[in-house]
């Protein structure tokens, strides 16, 4: 059997991302380890409190020598343009979660709307990564 443990997102700035994911999305820090002998590489993961076996890795773009300058610039650029990935979240109450997150300053791209699969809204994290916030229809079973 295979389980998903972590999935990685690029972020422009790990401190900024950490504040966003913990203070605004109410996720908990699973690990925050800085390794001096690896050029101060920082392994930073966060996840929803009620889902202890899954975490998002908030990965800083490493830069040279792992990633050459041109690639580093490209990854920054892709992320800023919103092409670096989408995370699909579920919630029990899309409208209430939307209002709560909005009041905390989360940048929404779409307000909650009824879809065939449920009610959902869209927002971005500070780096430009896209999120969907979906209240799934029970009838569709996800």
């Amino acid at each position, binding site marked *: 059997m295979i389980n998903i443990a972590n999935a990685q997102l690029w972020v422009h700035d790990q*401190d900024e991302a950490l504040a966003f994911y913990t203070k605004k999305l109410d996720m908990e820090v699973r690990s925050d380890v800085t390794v001096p002998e690896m050029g101060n590489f920082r392994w930073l993961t966060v996840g929803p409190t009620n889902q202890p076996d899954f975490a998002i890795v908030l990965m800083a773009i490493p830069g040279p020598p792992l990633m050459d300058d041109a690639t580093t610039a490209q990854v920054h650029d892709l992320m*800023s*343009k*919103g092409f670096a990935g989408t995370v699909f979240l579920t919630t029990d109450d899309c409208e209430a979660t939307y209002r709560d997150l909005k009041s905390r300053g989360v940048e929404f791209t779409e307000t909650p*709307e009824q*879809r065939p*699969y449920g009610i959902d809204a869209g927002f971005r994290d500070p780096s430009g990564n896209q999120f969907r916030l979906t209240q799934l229809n029970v009838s569709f079973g996800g």
Partner: protein
Amino acid sequence: MPSVPPARHLVRAKDLVDTRYHDPITVADMAKAAGLSRSHFSQQFHRAFGETPHTYLLTRRLERAAALLRNTDRSVADICLAVGLQSIGSFTTSFTHTYGMPPTTYRAQFPDPAKYALIPACVVRAHSRPQHRTFREDTPEPTPLTSEMSDSPPTGDL
């Protein structure tokens, strides 16, 4: 902390179009969302996304119109206005040009919208936006007629 890349601001203009395509938004509104001057914005947007802000807005509206044709029984005129386009004549023209057939013919090709109902809306929207082509690009390049070619015998596949 690294400075915010310019594209992070430009994507806000795209987000504005994605959210409010049905409103009478202009390129000036998009520039404002990106926090840039009108002329600088168009140039930067084109550099980042490979098309002009106006083209993005138009193709987004056509994509939404196509979705409404596939998924609803609303009239063509109603759909035209619902996606923020003003003239039904120019809507039909640009739709036909983009999708290769008039709206009603397009609609007739998609009998079962329920099949796609479980795909998240943002994914459908992003992946079904049509490529914008100018009329000139549609015309095939004329085959250069060199003296050698005109002298050669007919090859049968012409």
